[in-house]
């Protein structure tokens, strides 16, 4: 094989600490290399053209580019060599930027290391073979996990695009966090007025199948052909016939059930519909509080239900859905602020979270939109907002900024004044992060038009003083201590990854960061893709996001799915395992260890042999390291290719 080597300067990113000309010179001595050069920006158009020209001029059979990580530009250069008529697998990359030039300044050592990496790449390339993808048909249905605003947007866009959509929502209604909000910033328009119709669209769209109160049990398969096992949790109410009339709720004697929708401001009944605009508007029984389910006595709801749909014997049900792509929109949860002892650690009833406050502000909330102190039901006069509770705080393991708390705090301060014109709001803040369109103007309004007292500093202590709470903090701008007699304290609690995010990621085979937020394919260029083909991200599951960003991502993910499904067939990655039938002894160890069931037993002239199903094989290579005699080889990462890299580095 005639090999061409292109060593990229990446401007000064590489050249500053690697002598790329020396690397190219060294490469000229390697077996197979007939052309080697250093170039300023290999990925640029002239850079790529140089590769194409060299392939033609020198009749190259393979190309090595020494530049950045293959995660950045492997696809780019594979297209380049393909453009010049080479098979795209006759290409290798040496990562001399992320793995060399960016991690040390010793030019001699870096150059030396780069030469080694290029040698490895050429030795491997010498053993590369042209690979050709197989085509397979795809199931043009999409699964949306999570029915918050991001999921709703993705579902509607996909459904409008003509795709069949399956939506799975963990709780008994879609709407997510946004459904709990009273108003949204910076327009202060009614949250349910914007979201409600979209929720109804989901319910009514002929292309959307909604499984509420359901969870993902298992995911099998691969891009184009996933098989999903959905667990429909028992609701004890036959939803086919439930009309959502609410009579059961009125009559239910067990009125102390946890009201999660209302953030536990108040209680609800054991059989309940979370809120009047719930989609689907169906009742479900909370078995932890239902006397019938707990003690076998009561049964009132069954008696009063006009459509007779109460079923105390109901069991969880499992449904299998086949889809070709998955959008994950599982959102976020609130940080458990009770770790902060200085805020009372949960002991003071009048210290509440921003989302609880939101429910209190909402006309459809438990207080009917009246701001009342939880302790005595009185209207507060002084309301203190504390920002960055569980954000930007290393001491509680949350060093990141949630990003939207500054804005909703400003909104809540404004709404407080609207609701209680006599009130005075105080906001303790670290910095104001108001980087969206009309955002900064909005916070200014809160300060200037609504007399909110913004105090830059952290609160060091809250303690009860009579029926009030004394909030003590620092004003770092004035350099003084501040004390406020508060009637109500609202904590701007930060966002964290939703409960169960990591377990779901494991089922999806996608990565997540140390906080449990899902990893996007590339921080800049692939914000809604994951590294698992066919799995996309939307909304706050990828990181805290406000509503417009979540909606934007929902649409982006939908666009990706529609793009994926624009073809009838997908090409399978040809970097799959292959069995050398002559050398296979049919012991079946590969079949036993394959996580995908991609290897089957076949009969070959009366002998048992293994055979790889190309379109199912995901290319992990567990079979190859399992087969003692190496009869099954993962193409593009064969034993000989890896051994050649080892030998290129370790020559006795």
């Amino acid at each position, binding site marked *: 094989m005639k090999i061409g080597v292109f060593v990229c300067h990446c401007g000064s990113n590489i050249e500053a600490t690697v002598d790329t000309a020396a690397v190219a010179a060294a490469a000229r001595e390697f077996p197979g290399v007939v052309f080697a050069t250093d170039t300023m920006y290999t990925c640029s158009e002239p850079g790529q053209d140089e590769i194409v020209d060299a392939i033609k001029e020198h009749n190259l059979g393979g190309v090595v580019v020494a530049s950045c990580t293959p995660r950045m530009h492997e696809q780019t250069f594979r297209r380049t060599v393909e453009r010049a008529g080479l098979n795209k697998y006759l290409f290798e990359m040496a990562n001399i930027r992320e793995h060399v030039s960016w991690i040390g300044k010793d030019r001699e050592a870096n150059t030396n290391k780069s030469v080694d990496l290029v040698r490895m790449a050429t030795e491997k390339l010498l053993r590369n073979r042209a690979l050709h993808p197989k085509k397979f048909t795809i199931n043009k249905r999409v699964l949306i996990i999570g029915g918050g605003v991001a999921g709703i947007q993705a579902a509607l866009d996909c459904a409008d695009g003509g795709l069949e959509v399956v939506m799975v929502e963990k709780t008994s209604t879609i709407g997510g966090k946004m459904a709990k909000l009273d108003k949204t910033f910076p327009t202060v328009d009614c949250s349910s007025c914007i979201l409600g119709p979209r929720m109804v669209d989901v319910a009514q769209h002929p292309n959307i199948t909604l499984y509420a109160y359901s969870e993902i049990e298992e995911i099998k398969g691969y891009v184009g052909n996933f098989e999903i096992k959905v667990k429909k949790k028992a609701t004890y109410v036959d939803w086919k016939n439930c009309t959502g009339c609410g009579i059961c709720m009125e009559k239910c004697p067990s009125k102390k059930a946890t009201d999660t929708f209302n953030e536990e401001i108040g209680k609800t009944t054991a059989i309940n519909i979370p809120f009047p605009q719930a989609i689907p508007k169906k009742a479900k029984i909370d078995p932890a509080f239902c006397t019938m389910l707990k003690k076998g006595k009561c049964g009132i709801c069954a008696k009063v239900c006009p459509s007779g749909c109460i079923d105390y014997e109901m069991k969880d049900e499992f449904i299998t859905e086949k889809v070709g792509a998955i959008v994950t929109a599982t959102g976020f949860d609130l940080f458990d602020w009770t770790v902060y002892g200085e805020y009372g650690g949960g002991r003071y009833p009048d210290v509440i979270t921003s989302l609880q406050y939101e429910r209190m502000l909402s006309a459809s909330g438990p207080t009917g939109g009246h701001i009342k102190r939880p302790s005595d039901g009185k209207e507060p006069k002084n309301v203190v907002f504390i920002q960055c509770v569980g954000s930007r705080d290393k001491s509680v393991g949350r060093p990141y900024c949630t990003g939207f708390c500054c804005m909703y705090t400003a909104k809540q301060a404004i709404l407080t004044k609207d609701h209680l014109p006599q009130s005075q709001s105080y906001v303790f803040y670290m910095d104001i992060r108001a980087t969206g369109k009309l955002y900064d103007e909005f916070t200014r309004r809160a300060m200037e038009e609504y007399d909110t007292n913004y105090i830059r500093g952290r609160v060091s202590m809250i303690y009860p003083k009579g029926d009030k709470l004394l909030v003590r903090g620092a004003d770092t701008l004035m350099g003084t201590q501040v004390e406020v007699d508060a009637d109500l304290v609202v904590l701007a609690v930060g966002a964290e990854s939703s409960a169960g995010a990591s377990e779901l990621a494991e089922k999806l085979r996608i990565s997540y960061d140390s906080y449990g937020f899902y990893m996007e394919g590339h921080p800049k260029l692939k914000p809604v893709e994951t590294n698992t083909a066919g799995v996309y991200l939307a909304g706050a599951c990828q990181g805290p996001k406000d509503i417009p960003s979540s909606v934007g991502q929902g649409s982006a993910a939908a666009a990706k799915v529609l793009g994926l499904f624009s073809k009838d067939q997908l090409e399978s990655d040809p970097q799959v395992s292959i069995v*050398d039938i*002559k*050398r*296979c*002894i049919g*012991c*079946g*160890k590969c079949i*036993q*260890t394959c996580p995908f069931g991609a290897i089957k037993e076949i009969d070959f002239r009366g002998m048992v042999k293994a055979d790889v199903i190309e379109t199912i094989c995901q290319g992990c290579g567990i079979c190859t390291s*399992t087969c*003692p*005699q*190496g*009869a099954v*080889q993962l193409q593009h990462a*064969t*034993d*000989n290719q890896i*051994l050649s890299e080892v030998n290129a580095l370790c020559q006795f």
Partner: protein
Amino acid sequence: MKFQKELKDSIRKALPELDVVIGWCGSFDPLHATPHFIRREEDIDKLEIGPLSVHNLATYLPGLRSKKVGIVVKGCDSRSVIELLQEKLIDRENVTIFGFPCTGVVDQAKIKKALGHVGNVQSCDISDKSVVVVVGDQAHSLKLSEMLADKCHSCRYPDAIISDYFVGDKIGDAVPAKADYEALETFEKLSIPERFGYWLKELDRCIRCYACRNACPLCVCRDHCAAESRDPHWLSQENNVRDKLMFQVIHAYHLAGRCTECGECQRACPVDIPVLMLKQQMNKEIRDIFKYEAGVDPEATPPLLSFKMEEENITEKDW
């Protein structure tokens, strides 16, 4: 042996249904036995079992997979049969197993050492206690217990674990004279660099005949072994100690969790290299980490072909 007749009777009964029964018979001198393939009634008379029945006949089973095969097994050999069944390398319905209570087999290397050299053996009489070998008109009386293979001293399975016919009285739960892996202690006292030197020195005389591999009942790849292939190309054909040692590592690793320590690899070695020890060391780890013993349960899964989400006995490095 008391039950030899009983065994012959069992074989006589089963033979019409079988293509072949594998046992042992006398060999080139009175001190050795050799595998004996019984195909006809008259072959049965030559069958001899006893302390010279050293060969693990399970080695032949995968090669005879399509045949109806009878096999005579010692307790240790039966573990190889179980392992082969477990890995579905042989079919239970095609194998008829004849078990007998084994009181141990000799280690020819020990006899050779005791005699200095084997020479022209005229006779060999083995009783419960002793081995009397007459070489060149001179009689040598050796203690049987000292001539037994190491594996016999720590044997916990003197009776075949699996059998269709069992002749003689089962010995039952034997209390081994020595604990497992006691024989490894001398080696384990060596320093790390000494161990490196030890293996180089021992492997140096390897002639790469692969008798160790071909005698191994679980080296089922045989003709397709990675040792001689170019794709994958793990080893060169050059006579160098690196590749000789590397092969032994490959062998030991491919047997990890599968090896029943029958010792055939070492017995087969024509230049007496202690190759069994590498497998024993590997097995010792398998035992410690996975609490697993190969060749006792046909339904088990070898530990390297399975996993647990949480591994109780693996402590990863804390960086």
